[in-house]
């Protein structure tokens, strides 16, 4: 049997990968994918905990996280299309009318 903490370690590494991608990538779509990676790390730890507690509520939370991810992706990609239409680039460094 694999201990529960192994799953948590995996989830932590995936989460860190997601954060890394979010911080360093230049392409908006890939940045978005990094966020999905983070959410998946969250899901993995929820499922692991659900199985540890023998409670299904963690799995229910995962279900809702997936709904949220789907909704976020739909709106986010639509916004990306809108930005692309007015500006023809996907590099957030070039999206710079507003100073940061």
């Amino acid at each position: 049997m694999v201990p529960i903490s192994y799953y948590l370690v995996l989830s932590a590494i995936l989460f860190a990968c997601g954060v890394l991608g979010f911080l360093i990538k230049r392409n908006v779509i890939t940045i978005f994918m990094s966020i999905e990676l983070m959410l998946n790390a969250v899901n993995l730890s929820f499922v692991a905990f659900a199985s540890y507690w023998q409670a299904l509520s963690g799995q229910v939370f995962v279900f809702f996280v997936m709904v949220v991810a789907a909704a976020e992706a739909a709106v986010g990609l639509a916004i990306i299309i809108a930005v692309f239409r007015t500006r023809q680039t996907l590099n957030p460094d070039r999206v710079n009318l507003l100073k940061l």
Partner: protein
Amino acid sequence: MAMPLHQFFTSTDYLLSLPMIMLALFGMGVLIIDLLLPPEWKRANAWTALVGLVFSAIAVYKVQIADRIAEAHGQAGSFVGFGGSLVADRFAIYFYYLFLAGAAIAILMSVKYLEIEREQHGEFYALVLFSVIGMMCMASGYDIVLLFVGLELMALSTYVLVGFLRRDQRSNEAALKYLLLGAFSSGIFAYGLSLFYGLAGSTNLGQIALTLEQHFLANPKDPVAILALLTTATGLLFKIAAVPFHQWAPDAYEGAPTSITGYMSVAVKAAGWALLLRIFLYMLYPLRPIYLPMIIFVSLATLTAGNLAALTQSNLKRLLAYSSIAHVGYMLLGLVAGNTNNASSTGIKGIMVYLLVYTFMNLGAFAVITSLRRRDIIGDEIDDIAGLMFKAPTEAILMLVFLLSLAGIPPLAGFWGKYFIFLSLIESGHYALATVAVLYAVLGLYYYMRIANAMFMRRAETAEPVSLSPGLRLALAITALGTVIIGIFPEVFLRAAAWSLSVPQASAVAGLLK
């Protein structure tokens, strides 16, 4: 397996969710009616949405009455619905009213503005209503699932509202930045929640708090609990735009339609606060010794960065964005007040009052900025407000009132917010913090007065008159009255704030659930 319906959805559940049901019905109604309306009648959507808000307020009032009756019968003053995932206590009811008021004023401000931008669509009003539902879940959720879903409902609606001027590069750029950082912070927040779930094995706030209490007595420096606290708090601080997680706010505020900027700075921010207070006071109170130093650091950083950055801004919306960051710093001080084991009730009351007065004065300021938007003039630079006194004296004077209130000058409403925060700091012995906060309040006066200076001392750049639609007039009247009346006759409102906190605290609610 098959169970009767009334076990899934009781009459209490119905009563407690009625405010949300009303908003959902009217939101969908707006979407459908929008299809039937000819283009020149599109503004009717705003009235539909306002009626929806009124109906929702009536439903909230019903909940309040039920609460009063329950109190008369000697029952603890909070309702629990949906198997413990929703608690419509007084805390929630107070925030319900706040959200509804913020949304109503924002809608009044939007009608004319959207027409000028040629983006008058029913979707806008529907999204405002839906975002209020999300906020309500954030204020009354007693289960991390509901809190998370509510947060996302609000956030998602707001992303779209920020980018609603699709042909405007700044608007959709702001939406993109807001969405990326919002989704990122939601991810971090959810990770923290997953760790709390792992520690407690339940998604219910009360259960988690109880487990944390026991767990924390056993091992006070448990690394997993601390990591969970750090990640959850990071997500929450992102949502209320506290330094160092504030970078999205100025961009999103500047690019968004002005009325939505106002809405974001009051209602969305209040919802973020509702969530933060709900989690910190009801779920994480056992961890207070650990989070206290963190909050002190964040509040000082927020005050410093917000106030200093506001000094140099030339764009009105950006300036107010930084000033709203600074206000978050003051409110965080209210959370700091108290000793290591208990938050001071004066401090929390200060936050509640602050959020209330901030709703009126900040929306008022944004209403004035909205009125500067005319054909061909974006009207959000300080230069655009120059000489307002000579073009529209009423508006200039109202703006002055709002600015003074924002700076915290008595007898205006903003004073009372700061007063209670400072009072709570002094009561609980945080003298150094109180001194710093007062100094920053003086600094704040300076940049607010820069705007006033431009309005009264400088000549107008263009001769173009300032337009005032009926909706905007109404919005200005409400916010001005609110600012002045709360300032002069604060008793009623202070009592309301105290009332909102008169619920038995977390442990009692947890007891109710059993």
